[in-house]
């Protein structure tokens, strides 16, 4: 198993990429070297499936043993997860490489909870240069709106995701592409940008228009510059986080109005290809919906002589079988998307559907029809998965009915999922409206290995963190973080930023707690629905998790002896990002329904009560004698002269 390693400072994660075993069912011995542009350090996009039992993987191993070829060439070190069957590669090689290229694929994975996970990825690559005053005006596959954004705002990398729902790691395993509930945006700017904040502000407003989302609510109070958690995923080695901006809007609701502009960025729109499946009435009838756009520069070849821009549009959706299927566990493209496939996008160089059949090696779990002879295996997210591949560019795929409607019919409900190794949750503790405590729990389920995680917490200023109360405990003992980056908030200006590198002991729960005080906002700062509460965005946990394949090494019974002597090292770790749930926190809220009463009462009390009472308390009152008459005064003068007391 070959892997690529790059070393970085201690808190930077050593990102590993994956090796791909390419097996074409009919050409057992043909192994294709990837000719396609590779990407170094690509943890996010390399994210494939996790959560497979050790036994099953071991069984897989045996089954595929004969066909495996250990690839030692550096090519596959920078491999993509797409597998290119031999014929296509030959075709591509014989023509001059086009400047731009479009690929589409759909991965379908039956989950152990009985749900169905469908992940669309559309990739447009374009060998061009938006920077250095280069005026790019001729667009073919790459969407012009985004191209202009890249060149105008000198964007190096842009990642934006809109998510409705929360990814249930414990039931569904790790997602291919994690994203937090609501909207998330992070951008690396070119180092030529002078005023990053102004550019960022303008960029969010432009993106807000492009995606019909409330990204214009991103301002300095919810923007942070993480120092370690978000590294560039494309080429370039910039680590100066002055050029990074990260913001989330946990309250953002994602709906059709966000899907339509997203679909418009596709070269074929939603007319042909896989995109015909993206019908909003079905996509939003699901348990989880997430759509994202990632733009980054990638290497064009393995030596990285030339770079090109990659636009990756992804859409992940989890369908709830419990809701849609009336008791019968059956899944088909038509049932989920209310469409079937009839052709690939004509502009796409590759268009494929992958069905994860790892749990179903002998067909005892479910039945897949139409059957395909094309199989593919990949080690992703530390786990070895097997996929059935449907190549939409081949007319044979559609059969005689000229339409492809994949059907999975379950035979048994058996099967359990291996717990994901890393899992996190968060909640607010305490009661009352004065103080509270944020608890972040990080679970390491690995039986014997500890690994470090990087925790990023962004807390709005109106929760005033008492950072001296920060505690990190694992297994009842104090756990000293090896790296802490804390930026205190400024009222109404910027949020708290807390980044920590914490070592998670094996098979443990690590609890991070910090107390906070709830601020009393100014009356104009409350949202229109103040009693709903205020959101605190998800914590981000980035980690290098020991691979599940590596975990198998102590299970020697089904492995050849030569492969299982040395324990696996970092090569067998994989990069995971886990988002916790956002928090909803109630702040002390005045009763807005009676400002009139309050104003009246206050004015009355001040005007009448206070004035008079103050008067009564501070003045001394005396009875004044009425002034005596003239005769009496004269009489008194005479009496005074006589020495007699006056009248």
């Amino acid at each position, binding site marked *: 198993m070959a892997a690529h390693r790059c070393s970085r400072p201690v808190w930077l994660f050593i990102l590993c990429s994956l090796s791909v075993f390419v097996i074409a069912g009919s050409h057992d011995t043909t192994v294709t070297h990837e000719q396609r542009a590779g990407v170094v350090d690509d943890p996010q996009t390399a994210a494939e499936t996790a959560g497979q039992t050790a036994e099953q993987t071991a069984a897989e191993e045996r089954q595929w043993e004969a066909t495996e070829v250990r690839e030692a060439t550096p090519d596959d070190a920078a491999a993509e997860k797409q597998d290119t069957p031999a014929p296509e590669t030959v075709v591509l090689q014989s023509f001059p490489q086009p400047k731009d290229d479009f690929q589409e694929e759909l991965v379908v994975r039956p989950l152990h909870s*009985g749900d169905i996970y469908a992940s669309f990825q559309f990739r447009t690559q374009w060998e061009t240069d938006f920077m250095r005053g280069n005026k790019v005006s001729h667009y073919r596959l790459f969407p012009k709106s985004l191209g202009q954004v890249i060149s105008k705002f000198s964007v190096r990398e842009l990642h934006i995701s809109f998510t409705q729902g929360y990814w249930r790691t414990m039931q569904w395993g790790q997602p291919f592409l994690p994203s937090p509930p609501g909207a998330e945006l992070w951008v690396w700017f070119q180092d030529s940008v002078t005023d990053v904040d102004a550019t960022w502000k303008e960029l969010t407003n432009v993106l807000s228009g492009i995606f019909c989302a409330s990204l214009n609510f991103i301002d300095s109070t919810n923007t942070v510059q993480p120092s370690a958690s978000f590294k560039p995923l494309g080429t370039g080695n910039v680590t100066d986080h002055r050029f990074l901006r990260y913001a989330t809007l946990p309250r953002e609701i994602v709906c059709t109005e966000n899907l339509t502009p997203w679909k418009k960025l596709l070269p074929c729109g939603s007319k042909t290809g896989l995109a015909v499946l993206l019908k909003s009435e079905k996509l939003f009838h699901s*348990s989880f919906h997430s759509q994202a756009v990632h733009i980054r520069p990638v290497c064009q070849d393995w030596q990285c002589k030339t770079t090109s821009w990659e636009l990756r549009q992804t859409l992940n959706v989890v369908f709830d079988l*419990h809701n849609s299927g009336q008791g019968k566990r059956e899944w088909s493209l038509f049932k989920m998307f209310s469409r079937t496939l009839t052709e690939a996008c004509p502009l796409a160089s590759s268009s494929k559907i992958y069905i994860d059949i790892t749990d179903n090696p002998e067909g005892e779990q479910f039945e897949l029809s139409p059957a395909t002879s094309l199989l593919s295996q990949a080690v992703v997210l530390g786990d070895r998965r097997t996929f059935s591949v449907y190549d939409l560019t081949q007319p044979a795929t559609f059969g005689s009915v000229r339409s492809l409607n994949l059907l999975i019919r379950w035979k048994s409900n058996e099967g359990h999922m291996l717990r994901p190794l890393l899992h996190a949750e968060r909640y607010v*503790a*305490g009661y009352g409206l004065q103080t509270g405590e944020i608890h972040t729990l990080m679970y390491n389920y690995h039986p014997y290995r500890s690994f470090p995680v990087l925790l990023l917490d962004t807390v709005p200023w109106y929760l005033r963190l008492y950072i001296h109360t920060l505690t990190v405990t694992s297994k009842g003992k104090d756990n000293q973080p090896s790296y802490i980056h804390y930026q205190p908030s400024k009222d109404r200006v910027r949020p708290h930023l807390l980044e920590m590198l914490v070592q998670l002991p094996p098979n443990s729960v690590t609890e991070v707690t910090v107390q906070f005080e709830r601020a009393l906002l100014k009356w104009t700062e409350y949202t229109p629905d103040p009693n709903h509460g205020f959101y605190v965005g998800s914590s981000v946990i980035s980690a290098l998790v020991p691979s599940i394949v590596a975990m198998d090494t102590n299970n020697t019974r089904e492995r050849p002896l030569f492969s299982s002597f040395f324990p696996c090292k970092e090569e067998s770790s994989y990069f995971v990002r886990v988002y916790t*749930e956002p928090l909803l926190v109630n702040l002390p809220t005045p009763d807005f329904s009676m400002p009139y009463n309050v104003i009246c009462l206050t004015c009355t009390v001040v005007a009448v009560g206070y004035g008079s009472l103050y008067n009564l308390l501070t003045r001394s009152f005396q009875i004044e004698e009425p002034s005596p008459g003239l005769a009496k005064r004269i009489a008194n003068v005479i009496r005074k002269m006589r020495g007699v007391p006056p009248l």
Partner: protein
Amino acid sequence: MGLLSDPNRRRALINLLTRLNAPICVVCYIAGVTWFMGLAFEPFTLRTYMSENAMGSTMVEERFPSGERAVATGREFAAHKKKVGGMPVEWLVKTMQARGMEVYTQRFSRTLPFPDEDKERYLVKGTNVYGILRAPRAPRTEALVLSAPCTPGDNNNQAVGLLLGLAQYFRNQVYWAKDIIFLVNEHDLIGMQAWLEGYHHTNTTGMDWSPLQGRGGSIQAALTLELSSDVVTSLDLVLEGLNGQLPNLDLANLFYAFCQKIGVLCTIQGKLQRNDWDSVSGYSHAVQTMMLMVMKQASGRPWGDHGLFLRYHIEAATIKGINSFRQYKTDTTTIGRLLEGMYRKLNNLLERLHQSYFFYLMPSLSHFVSIGYYMPAFGLLAVILLLRALDLWVQLAAPPPRTEDGVADVEQSSPGPLSVLTPLVISHLTGVALYMLPIQFQEMAVAQFPVSETEAVVLTAIAVYTSGLALPHNTNRLLSGEGTEQGWRVLKLVALLYLAVLLGCTALINFSLGFILALTLVPAAAFVTPHVPKFLSAFILVVLSPAFTLLFSVFFFQELQEMPVSFLDGWLLYLSVISQGILDHFLYGSLVYPLIALLVYPCWLLFWNILFWK
């Protein structure tokens, strides 16, 4: 105010107030009580109305079909409960999982400060089981709770059955925007307390519980279900929570609206609503309903599992199924539909329930008395204390009466701070003893006397209470010698203001408790001087003391519930009420016991002290 800044008129006013002080006080007292009794008269009260816009009248359609299956599930649950001899945790976990929920358990244990003889428990160990129905496309920020206690014996099995039936039905619906937590808690309130403390990770009562694994964000509202029969004749709504807290009135309105819509008989305090408000019996019915609410609220204890939610700012109520001998029966499907409707409405909430009243009394389910209407009743009682204080103040400020030989009594003009401070400190120390000793001395008492722990605690409390009557004025005499005429006036002035502040604060938090205490303490405080006939006054003062207030309340409550008791039974009930009050404080943090022991009782002792001045 001009009246006061003119010295002549001020003097006239003060003269009037001091001269007519006693009649004015009597009038105020009668007016206060009358006002309070008038609150139950229907024309004086407001009809309830839904304030929360998101829960507008009839936008949801109830379709819950499987009441029969819920009853069957309840029977199955009962069988498993009987087999296990407690909470069938495994069965519940499996059943909830089969219904497509995330299921978690929580273990807890609690050693009571002394054995609870009513419920026969001392070392409590149990397990809560809860399943979370995750709302699709919701980020786990908000949740609703439906809970059913797993009680020993044959009770409440139908509630658990219905809970599981609703869980199954809710799971297949797509419209949920908030997670719904289905909780089956063991050992009723103790289990609920453990779960709530675990959920919010607080520990206010020193209970041991295992941390919760799954959560659903901030809980917006909760309902507790108590059903003990397959069919019911009516549903009763219980609102009174810990320390007299009440849920937002909109929750009661929601229940009432759905009862009306579905056609279920609904009651509050077990009393049906009557339409003949203009007849004497109709009025007395309303008074009974309201007085029951006042008594329950004043007790400060949670009257259902919902009562503990209120501390966490979660609106909650208990719905009790009642099966009486009426003809018209309601089946489980209908109750399920009612709950479905309520949850769909709560699911629609955009904000926490906050639009309607938090302070109210209900003479019937369709009428309520808001804080603005009932507070004057208390104010009229409290003003008596201020009038008496004013009277004393004027007397103290007036020049001392000259004796016949023209020499003013020197010692009278300077009572000194010691003569006030000593009784204050001593009576508060007695209060501290009343608060601490019953729990501290239970082992010693059990060893010395042939009583059980619970009896020991209650009897110690009564003993401390009684001995307090002897203690203060004796000690006072020992320390500062003979009391003076000025001395008791100053002390009474202080005591009156103290009582006024104390009752005022209590009434703001728990109106019923404040009002009931004011009813008895205010007359006692008003009439006491050292110059009234000793034995008669002492008798009256004892009868008006907090302990006797509680005794009367016990008998009165039984009377209101139409379950009158004999004196002996009443006495036993009284003893158990005292032990329950102390337990409520230690188990759930109810504040009535410390309030009475540490503040009200010492305050009453001051007046007792004044009676025996010199």
